[in-house]
């Protein structure tokens, strides 16, 4: 796992990375990064990640990393 800032995120997005918001459903529904899917941390498991492509990078984010 690698921690990144905005410049690296921009580069990964330009390459078509998968973006996952791990905040609760309500917060995702209100506002999320374009193209992000929502898998709340409390539900993150093998079943909820089946739609993610393991051969491509995955970027996760929440509100501020805390």
């Amino acid at each position, binding site marked *: *796992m*690698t*921690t*990144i*800032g*905005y410049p*690296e*995120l921009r580069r*990964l997005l330009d390459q078509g*990375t998968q973006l*996952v*918001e*791990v*905040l609760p459903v309500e917060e*995702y*529904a*209100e*506002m*999320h*990064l*374009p*193209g*992000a899917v929502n*898998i709340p*941390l409390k539900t*993150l*498991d*093998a079943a909820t*990640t089946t739609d*993610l492509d*393991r051969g*491509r*990078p*995955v*970027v*996760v*984010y*929440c*509100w*501020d*990393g*805390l």
Partner: protein
Amino acid sequence: MSPRAACRLDTLGFSQVYDYMPGKVDWLARNLPVEGTDAGAPLIGRHLRDEVVTAAPDEPIADVRACVAASPHSFALVTTADRVLLGRLRGTHLDHADANAVTAEVMEAGPSTLRPHEPVDAVRAHLVDKGHAYAIVTDPDGRLLGTVHADDLM
């Protein structure tokens, strides 16, 4: 929260996992687009003006004075070549400074700034309360995004 999520993905066998730890607040503070039910929320980033005069730190005051005289505002902002905000030149600075001085010698260093995801209502109330006509808006790296003016938020 996101560090735990990234570790969880690691344990699930994902090999290319990145944690954008600065998170959604960093994205919003860069005035980048979002999706969702609140995507159209009234934030000051939608009211930014970019016509304020900017100057390099080594620019002569006389040159800046001329640009400001031709602009709709009475002040200028001093930035680096990649728009990191260094200071402000108020009208009084420009009026009284030696014309041969350079901006870095005269400017007010480190002026207060806001982020673009501040709510319009709160910023308008703050500006009115403090008697300020405008606020400077920068991103998390200190780069100038523009200015927001109380009259535009009414």
